[in-house]
């Protein structure tokens, strides 16, 4: 009896990768999954932190998808390696700071290294021709296969009939006529297939699992680079960009203002890395000072802005504590800034 072929699938947690694996499993292939953690993933962080999203299931969708499929999932931290993709994308950015083509090529390359190390036969992705403007086009999908080094070991089951035959087909591990011919941005075929397979609960049917595709997030990332000595980032940097309201009144400091209790609690965890501020006379947010005040005017302006976001925004005065990284605290009393005095340009 010939050996069972083995494949590894890129699992994002969305519908396409779920279906792609199912299509291949039905052909008798043994499948395991890989999920790459870049730090820019939408799911997880904000859902976990924000109290007002408590009605949403607090689960990692990639893990959940893998369990639905009955496969093992390997979650791999690529935060450090991924920086080069974000900072120096060979194929450039999409509409925002999303280096989609480089990103997909990098992930397929990592998956290819994984199958070589673990003696698997091919790689599966949930890509669909014409679904994404950058990485999922007829002319760019071959670029991913070529530049990743995966070549014809890359199988895209959802649109495989529209692409040249892969090694898996040539070797008879899978049958071409059992692959699909989905194309374009219409999600109806995927939703219909999910129904046929009995999948009723799945995440993000329209895709989009990366903060780098988000206009507001990209703006904050660009601001971070413009105000740092080097164009770089840490994991904490990119997580903090997802949290709170960011206001930059001066080039040399910005305020990160918690928007609700969950974010306040999360930001409090950074009190040893940043000066933090909170109102003592009224209920209000926890605020981090990113950068430094050069004089008393900077401090007063900041405190008046913060006071605006407390329950005392209409009060004559609000008292606030400013606590430095070492825990030294000082109390100040200010009048809240009027809303129209917080300049639109300050908001990131």
């Amino acid at each position: 009896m010939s050996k069972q072929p083995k494949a590894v699938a890129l699992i994002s947690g969305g519908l396409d990768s779920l279906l792609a694996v199912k299509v291949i499993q039905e052909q008798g292939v043994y499948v395991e999954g890989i999920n790459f953690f870049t730090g820019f993933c939408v799911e997880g962080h904000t859902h976990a932190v924000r109290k007002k999203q408590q009605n949403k299931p607090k689960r990692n969708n990639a893990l959940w998808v893998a369990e639905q499929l009955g496969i093992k999932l390997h979650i791999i931290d690529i935060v450090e390696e991924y920086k080069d993709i974000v900072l120096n994308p060979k194929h450039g950015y999409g509409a925002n700071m999303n280096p989609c083509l480089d990103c997909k090529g990098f992930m397929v390359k990592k998956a290819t290294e994984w199958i070589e190390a673990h003696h698997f036969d091919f790689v599966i992705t949930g890509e669909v021709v014409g679904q994404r403007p950058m990485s999922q086009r007829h002319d760019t999908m071959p670029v991913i296969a070529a530049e990743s080094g995966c070549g014809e070991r890359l199988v895209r089951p959802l649109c495989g009939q529209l692409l040249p035959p892969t090694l898996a087909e040539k070797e008879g591990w899978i049958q071409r006529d059992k692959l699909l011919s989905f194309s374009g941005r219409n999600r109806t075929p995927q939703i219909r297939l999910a129904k046929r397979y009995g999948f009723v609960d799945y995440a993000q049917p329209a895709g989009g699992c990366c903060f780098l595709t988000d206009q507001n997030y990209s703006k904050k990332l660009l601001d971070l680079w413009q105000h740092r000595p080097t164009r770089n980032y840490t994991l904490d940097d990119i997580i903090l960009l997802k949290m709170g309201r960011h206001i930059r009144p001066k080039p040399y400091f910005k305020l990160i203002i918690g928007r609700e209790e969950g974010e306040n609690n999360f930001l409090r965890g950074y009190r040893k890395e940043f000066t933090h501020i909170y109102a003592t006379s009224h209920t209000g947010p926890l605020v981090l000072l990113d950068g430094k005040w050069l004089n008393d005017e900077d401090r007063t302006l900041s405190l008046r802005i913060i006071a605006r976001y407390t329950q005392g925004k209409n009060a004559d005065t609000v008292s606030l504590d400013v606590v430095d990284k070492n825990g030294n605290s000082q109390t100040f009393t200010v009048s809240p800034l009027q809303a129209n005095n917080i300049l639109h340009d300050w908001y990131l």
Partner: protein
Amino acid sequence: MKHQLNARRLLCPLPVIRTQDKIATLKTGDLLEVICTDPGVKSDIPVWCRMNGHQIQNIQEQDGEISITISVQNSP
């Protein structure tokens, strides 16, 4: 042998990644207590354990911290 992993302040999937990496260094029968603050771990770590054949012995929550004790099975 009992081990402990501090995953406080880490948001999912990082606690799962750290758990996965730590368990890769342990032996069958070892116990690993993972201490976390992200409530998502109450779903994610048990799912990861189920798919990898490890057993959850205990999940406790107190003062915003979640402690999950895992019995390591079939170590690599």
